[in-house]
C-alpha cells in the first residue's frame, strides 16, 4: 500500500497510545526526521512519561519542527494528535512555513492498543485513557481534510500498517532537475502574431495545422520556451496564442506557469461568477467562436498550470508576479496568491491601480527570478530578478530572456491592441529601480561569501562590525566602490643575515610552486589607488546610477581628494583612455584600474609629519647631544667606547631614516606633482582580466602614459625565469640597483597572472622590500644586528592566508561587477575584504 507524501511536508501521525506510531515512524523515516513528544518530554524533564512536562515538550517540538520546515526538510510529528486543538497547531505551523500538512492515521482496534500498553511497564495509565483517546480519534476522522490536511491516509488494520510504503513525491513546482536552456517569455495577452515573430526570432520553427494555424514550435537546439503567465485576455487572438502554447507544452517544447488572467478565465469558463473586466470579455468572445472541445481543453490546460516553477537545480524561478526567496519551492495558498497577484502596499496610484510592493528591491536570493504581471518599458535586472512584461498588448514589445545566456530578445508590438489605464511609459523615471540602496543585513554579522577561486570565505561578526564603522564613515559611495585591493604578502624572511627580505626567496617560492616565469615590477613609492572611470556622465549614470564619472579611492575605500580634484584627475584619466582608444577596444564605457598614486604624501602627509618626521626630529635632537656627551667622557678616559660606537651608529641610522621617509613626500599643488602608475586593468563591462598576463596589463598602462606623460608614471619591470640562475641573478641585481637608489623594492608576480596550484590560487604577488625602505616599517635601528636577529622571527603564514582570501574575494567581486550583478552582491565582497583587514595580522608584513 503506497502512502504518497509530498516533499517538504509536515507529516502528522495520529493514533492512540499503543497504536504503534513510533514503530511506524522508525520504520519509514530517518531518526532525525521524527520528532516524538515522548522524546521531548524526556528532553525537558528527564522523564518521557511526565505528563506535567507536556506543555514545555510541545513548545520545544514546535520550535524544532519550525526550524526544519524553514529549511525545507520533511518532518514527522510522532504524538497522539487525537485532539483537534493539537492538530490545529501543527497545521498552522505548516502554513506558516508554506508546506503541506499530511495526516497518517493509525486507527487500530482498541484492544490491540490496550494489550500493547499492558506489556510496557512505563505505560502505567489505566485503560480509560486509551478509550478516551480512541473516542477522540473516531470523532476526528471525518474532519481531517477540512482541518487543512492536504492528504489523509488511514490505516485501520495491522496488515495495512505492515504493508504501508511511504512514497515521497516531489511538488509540482519542483523541476530542479530540468536545466534548460530556456527562452523565458513575458506576458503575451493574446498577441499571437508578435509571439510567432518572437519565437521565430529566438530560432524556433513553427508547426502549422492544415488551416495554417500555429500549433507547435520547436527549437533545433533543444531549447524550450517558458511562459511566465498571462497568455490570455485583452489582445486580438487569445485562442491562437493558447493553441500554440498548449501545443508546445503538450509536445514538451514549452513550460508555463499560471497568470492571474488564466486563473480568472478558468473560473469564468466554469461558470463561476466573475467580474468581466481587464480584457476578459475579449477572451470570452473569441473563445465562444471556438468549438466546445477546444474550450474544454483550454479550461483543463489553464486549471493545471502551476503557480510557480523552480528550475535548473534551484537557480531559476518562474512566477507570474515574482516570488520572494522564502516562497521558492513551497506550496500554500499565500505562495500561490503571491505568485499570481504579487503583493500590494494597500495603496492605489493616481490611475486607481494598486501600488505593487517592490519585493524585488529587497530580494537577496541566489536564484534568478523571472516574472511579468506589471508592464515596464524595459526589461531590467533588479537584484537578480527581471520583469519580462514589456506591455506587448499596450503597444510596447514582447520580450524573452535567453537563459542561462541572460540575453534579452524583444519584438515590437504591431499596434496598440488595448489602451492601458496607466501610460506604459510614465512621464518621469518609469520604474523605481533602486540599485544604490544597501541594507544593513547585506553586511552585518557573521557572513560567508562563496568565491569561485577559493571556496567559502568566512567573515567574523566582530570584524564585520569594525568594517561597518570604517565603511560607513570614510568610504566613497558604495555604487563607486567595486573593489578593495587585497593585501600582499612579503617573501619569506631571507636566509641572509643582513637583510629581512631578498628576491631569492621570491624566485624560489614561485619555482617550487611550478611557476616558470615571473615579472618583477618596481614597487612605487606611493599609495595603492583604485580608479573607476566612466566614458561620460551619462554612461556613469546608466551603469552606476550615481553622479560624476567615477572615483579614486584608497585600499580602504577612502577618497584621495575632494570632489573638485577627483573630477580633474578622472577627467585626465578619461581623456587618456579615450586617446588610447581603449573604450572601443575593450567595448566598455567604464574601466576599473589598479594603480599606485604618488607621492605617498598626497594621502599621508599627516602621517609623515606626525609619525615619521616626529621620530626623525627627536632622534636628530637627542642623538648628537648623546654622542657629544659620550665623546667628552671618552676624552676624559672613561670606558664608553662600545656605547659611543652604538650611539654613533644610531645617529647614522636616524639620518638614513630621515632620507627614507623623505623620499615619500614632495610638493604637490592641485594635480601638479601627482603621478598615477596603473599596473593592472581590473574590470570593464562584461569582462575581467585576471587571466591576461602582466605584460598585457603593463602594455595598456604604457599606452595611457603615452597619452599623458605628465600624469602617468611608468612601472619599470623585468621578466625572470625562475629556473634559470643567470636570469634570477639578473633579478637580484636589478632589485639591488632599485633599492640602493632608495627605491621601495619590487613585487614579484607570476607572469601569467591568475594561476591555480594544488590547493587553490597561487599567491598573486610577493613583495620584496628594500633594506632602507624597511626602516620606516621596523624603525630606524632595525638594521642593528641584535635587532635584526630578533625581527627575523616573523610569522608570514597568517599574512599569506589572509592575502589569498582577500585575493579571492577581490576576484569574486570583480566578476560580479563585470557581470552587472546587483550592488549588494558586489559590495559584499569589498566589505568582506575590509572586514578581513581588521583581523589581527602583523601590520608590518
Amino acid at each position, binding site marked *: 500500500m503506497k502512502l504518497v507524501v509530498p516533499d517538504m511536508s509536515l507529516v502528522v501521525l495520529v493514533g492512540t497510545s499503543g497504536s504503534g506510531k513510533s514503530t511506524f515512524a522508525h520504520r519509514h523515516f530517518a531518526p532525525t526526521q521524527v520528532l516524538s513528544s515522548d522524546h521531548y518530554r524526556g528532553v525537558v524533564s528527564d522523564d518521557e512519561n511526565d505528563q506535567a512536562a507536556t506543555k514545555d515538550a510541545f513548545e520545544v517540538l514546535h520550535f524544532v519542527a519550525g526550524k526544519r520546515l524553514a529549511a525545507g526538510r520533511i518532518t514527522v510529528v510522532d504524538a497522539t494528535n487525537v485532539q483537534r486543538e493539537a492538530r490545529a497547531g501543527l497545521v498552522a505551523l505548516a502554513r506558516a512555513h508554506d508546506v503541506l500538512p499530511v495526516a497518517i492515521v493509525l486507527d487500530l482496534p482498541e484492544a490491540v492498543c490496550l494489550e500493547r500498553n499492558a506489556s510496557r511497564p512505563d505505560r502505567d495509565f489505566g485503560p480509560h485513557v486509551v478509550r478516551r483517546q480512541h473516542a477522540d480519534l473516531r470523532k476526528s476522522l471525518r474532519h481531517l481534510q477540512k482541518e487543512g490536511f492536504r492528504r489523509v491516509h488511514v490505516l485501520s488494520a495491522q496488515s495495512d500498517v505492515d504493508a504501508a510504503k511511504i512514497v515521497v513525491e516531489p511538488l509540482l513546482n519542483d523541476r530542479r532537475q530540468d536545466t534548460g536552456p530556456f527562452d523565458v517569455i513575458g506576458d503575451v495577452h493574446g498577441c499571437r502574431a508578435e509571439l510567432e515573430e518572437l519565437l521565430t526570432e529566438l530560432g524556433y520553427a513553427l508547426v502549422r495545422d492544415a488551416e495554417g494555424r500555429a500549433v507547435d514550435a520547436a527549437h533545433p537546439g533543444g531549447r524550450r520556451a517558458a511562459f511566465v503567465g498571462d497568455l490570455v485576455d485583452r489582445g486580438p487572438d487569445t485562442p491562437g496564442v493558447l493553441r500554440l502554447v498548449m501545443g508546445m507544452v503538450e509536445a514538451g517544447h514549452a513550460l508555463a506557469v499560471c497568470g492571474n488572467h488564466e486563473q480568472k478565465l478558468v473560473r469564468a469558463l466554469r461558470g463561476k461568477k466573475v467580474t468581466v473586466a481587464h480584457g476578459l470579455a475579449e477572451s470570452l468572445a473569441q473563445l465562444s467562436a471556438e468549438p466546445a472541445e477546444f474550450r474544454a481543453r483550454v479550461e483543463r490546460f489553464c486549471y493545471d498550470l502551476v503557480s510557480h516553477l523552480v528550475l535548473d537545480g534551484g537557480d531559476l524561478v518562474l512566477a507570474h508576479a515574482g516570488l520572494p526567496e522564502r516562497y521558492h519551492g513551497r506550496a500554500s495558498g499565500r505562495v500561490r496568491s503571491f505568485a499570481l497577484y504579487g503583493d500590494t502596499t494597500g495603496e492605489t496610484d493616481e490611475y486607481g491601480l494598486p501600488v505593487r510592493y517592490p519585493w524585488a528591491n529587497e530580494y537577496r536570493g541566489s536564484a534568478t527570478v523571472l516574472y511579468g504581471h506589471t508592464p515596464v518599458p524595459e526589461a531590467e535586472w533588479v537584484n537578480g530578478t527581471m520583469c519580462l512584461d514589456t506591455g506587448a498588448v499596450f503597444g510596447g514589445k514582447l520580450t524573452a530572456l535567453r537563459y542561462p545566456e541572460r540575453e534579452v530578445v524583444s519584438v515590437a508590438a504591431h499596434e496598440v491592441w488595448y489602451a492601458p489605464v496607466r501610460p506604459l511609459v510614465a512621464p518621469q523615471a518609469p520604474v523605481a529601480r533602486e540599485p*544604490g*540602496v*544597501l*541594507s*544593513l*543585513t*547585506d*553586511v*552585518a554579522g557573521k557572513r560567508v561569501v562563496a568565491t569561485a577561486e577559493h571556496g567559502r570565505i568566512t567573515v567574523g561578526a*566582530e570584524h564585520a*562590525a569594525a568594517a*561597518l*564603522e570604517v*565603511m*560607513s*564613515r570614510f568610504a566613497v*559611495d*558604495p555604487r563607486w566602490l567595486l573593489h578593495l585591493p587585497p593585501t600582499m604578502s612579503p617573501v619569506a624572511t631571507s636566509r641572509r643575515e643582513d637583510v629581512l627580505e631578498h628576491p631569492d626567496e621570491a624566485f624560489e617560492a614561485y619555482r617550487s610552486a611550478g611557476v616558470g616565469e615571473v615579472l618583477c615590477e618596481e614597487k612605487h613609492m606611493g599609495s595603492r589607488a583604485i580608479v573607476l572611470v566612466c566614458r561620460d556622465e551619462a554612461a556613469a549614470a546608466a551603469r552606476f546610477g550615481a*553622479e560624476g564619472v567615477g572615483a579614486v579611492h584608497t585600499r580602504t575605500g577612502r577618497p584621495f581628494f575632494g*570632489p573638485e580634484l577627483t573630477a580633474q584627475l578622472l577627467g585626465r584619466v578619461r581623456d587618456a583612455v579615450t586617446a588610447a582608444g581603449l573604450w572601443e577596444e575593450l567595448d566598455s564605457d567604464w574601466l576599473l584600474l589598479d594603480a599606485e598614486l604618488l607621492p605617498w604624501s598626497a594621502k599621508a602627509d599627516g602621517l609623515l*609629519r606626525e609619525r615619521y*618626521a*616626529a*621620530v*626623525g*626630529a*627627536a*632622534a*636628530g*635632537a*637627542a*642623538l*648628537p*647631544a*648623546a654622542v*657629544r*656627551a*659620550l665623546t*667628552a*667622557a671618552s676624552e*676624559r678616559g*672613561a670606558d*664608553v667606547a662600545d*656605547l659611543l660606537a*652604538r*650611539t654613533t651608529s644610531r645617529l647614522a641610522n636616524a639620518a638614513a631614516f*630621515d632620507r627614507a621617509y*623623505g623620499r615619500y*613626500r614632495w610638493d604637490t599643488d592641485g594635480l601638479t606633482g601627482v603621478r598615477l602608475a596603473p599596473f593592472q586593468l581590473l574590470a570593464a563591462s562584461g569582462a575581467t582580466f585576471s587571466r591576461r598576463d602582466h605584460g598585457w596589463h603593463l602594455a595598456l598602462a604604457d599606452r595611457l602614459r603615452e597619452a599623458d606623460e605628465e600624469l602617468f608614471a611608468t612601472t619599470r619591470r623585468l621578466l625572470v625565469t625562475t629556473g634559470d640562475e643567470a636570469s634570477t641573478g639578473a633579478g637580484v641585481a636589478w632589485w639591488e640597483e632599485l633599492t640602493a637608489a632608495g627605491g621601495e623594492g619590487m613585487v614579484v608576480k607570476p607572469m601569467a597572472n591568475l594561476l591555480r596550484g594544488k590547493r587553490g590560487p597561487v599567491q598573486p604577488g610577493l613583495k620584496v622590500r628594500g633594506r632602507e625602505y624597511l626602516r*620606516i*616599517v*621596523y*624603525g*630606524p*635601528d*632595525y638594521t642593528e644586528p641584535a*635587532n635584526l636577529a*630578533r*625581527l627575523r622571527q616573523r610569522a608570514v603564514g597568517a599574512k599569506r592566508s589572509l592575502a589569498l582570501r582577500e585575493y579571492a574575494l577581490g576576484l569574486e567581486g570583480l566578476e560580479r561587477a563585470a557581470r552587472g550583478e546587483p550592488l549588494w552582491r558586489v559590495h559584499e565582497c569589498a566589505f568582506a575584504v575590509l572586514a578581513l583587514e581588521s583581523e589581527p595580522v602583523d601590520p*608590518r608584513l
Partner: protein
Amino acid sequence: MLLTITTTHRPATDLGFLLHKHPAKVQPFRVASGTAHVFYPRADERECTAALLLEVDPIGLVRGRRDDAFTLGQYVNDRPYTAGSLLAVALGAVFRTAMNGRCDGHQELADSAIPLRVHLPALPCGGGPELLRRLFAPLGWHVAARPVPLSAAVPEWGDSRCCDVELTGELRLSDALRHLYVLLPVADDAKHYWVEQQEVDKLLRAGEGWLAAHPERELITSRYLKRTSVLVRSALSRLAEGDDPAEGELDDALVPPRISLAEQRRQAVLTVLRELGARRVLDLGCGAGALLRDLLADPSFTHVLGVDVSAGALAAAHARLGLDRAPDRVRERISLRQSALTYTDPSLAGHDAAVLMEVVEHVEPDRLPALERAVFEVAAPGAVVVTTPNAEHNVLFETLPAGQMRHTDHRFEWTRAQFARWADGVAARHGLRVRYLPIGPEDPVHGPPTQMAVFTPEETR
C-alpha cells in the same frame, strides 16, 4: 633618552657623592625598557656633569606588549629618543637614594641648594616652551626651551612636540630630581604603563613639599594620573588636606560652573521629545550615551534604542549607563545596537521619534541621500529631531581659527540657510512639516551656536 645634570658648586665633583655614582666609572643599570648608563662627560673642580643615557630596546618595546593607547605598538616610535616617562622611570631607579635626599657623609650638602643646570635635548611637550615655563618656573628654575623643528628639509611643517630644554637654578639636588621625575611625563602627557592607586602615592611622595603649592597642581595631577578621574580626585583631596579648602572649591576646580552647550543641546532635545509625547525613542548616533542617560532618567520614555556605527562607542555607552548592574526595569527600557545610517535597517522601525544629535555633519554630503532614506523611509519614526552646528556662529568662538570647523571629523558645517535648504527638501519629499529652533545663546547677527530641526507629520503640530 638623555639627561645631563651639571653643577658649578665647588668642589663640583661632590655631585658624584650626591648621586651615589663615582665620576670615574661608567655604570650600566638594567631597567624595564632597556639599559640606563651613568657617566660623566666632565668632572673637575669647577664643573661636573653627570649624564644619564637610557638605551631603549626598540624591539622589546613592541614585542610582548598590548597597549594601544600608547604608541608602543609601533616600531617607528619617538620613545627611544625622548625624555618622557621611560626616562623618568629610569631616573627614579638609578638615582633613588639621591632623590630621597639621603647622602651619608655629605648630608649637609644634600640638604643645601646648589647651582644646577639640567639639559634635556629632546623633551616632548605638546604645550611647548610656554607650558614648560608654567611647570618649572614656579619651582625656581629658569627655563630656556627651544622647539625642535620637525624636518630641516620641510620647514613648512613647523616644530615638533620636542623641545631642547635647559633648566638652571639653585636647588637641592633631591628636589631637582623629584621635579624631573614628576614633570617629565607630565610635559609629555603620556605614560607607558597603566596607572593605578599606587601611582597616587608615588605622585604625593615625589611631590612632597612642592606640589601642593604649585599653581598648576591640577594639571600636573590630572596628567600624571592619565586623567583617571577617580585617582585625580583622590590625589587632589589628599593634596588639599594641608590647606583645608572648602568642599565646593575643589568641585568648582573640576567642573566648569556654567551649563555646557552639550548640556543645553540635550535639554532642548528632551523638551521637544516631551512636547511630542514620544514614548519610544531612537537615538541615532548615540555615541557614549550622554542623551541616553537623560532619556533613561525620565520614565515617560518607555523604550529607548541607542544606535551607533562604532562598536567601541556602544561599549562605552553600555559601561557609562552601568547596564550590567542596572535593575531589570531600567534594562528592559533600553537597548543598544550597532547600525549605520548609510545602510537601511528595517529593525529601526516603529519609534515615535528619532534623534540625530550632532550626527549629520559627520556624513559626507553625497551620502546624505542614503541617510535620508535610511531614517525617513525605512526607520520612518513618527518625528525626527536633528541638531547640527550653526556655521555662522563660528566667528564668535575665540579659540576657533577663522574658516576652521569645530571638529576634525565634521564634513561640513551649515549656515542656517543651508540647513533649512536641506531640511525643507527632506520635509517636502516625505510629506513632513519642519520647524526650526535655536539652541544656546542666540546672537542677533550670527544666530545660536547650534540649530535644531523638528520634523513632524503634516497633520499634527
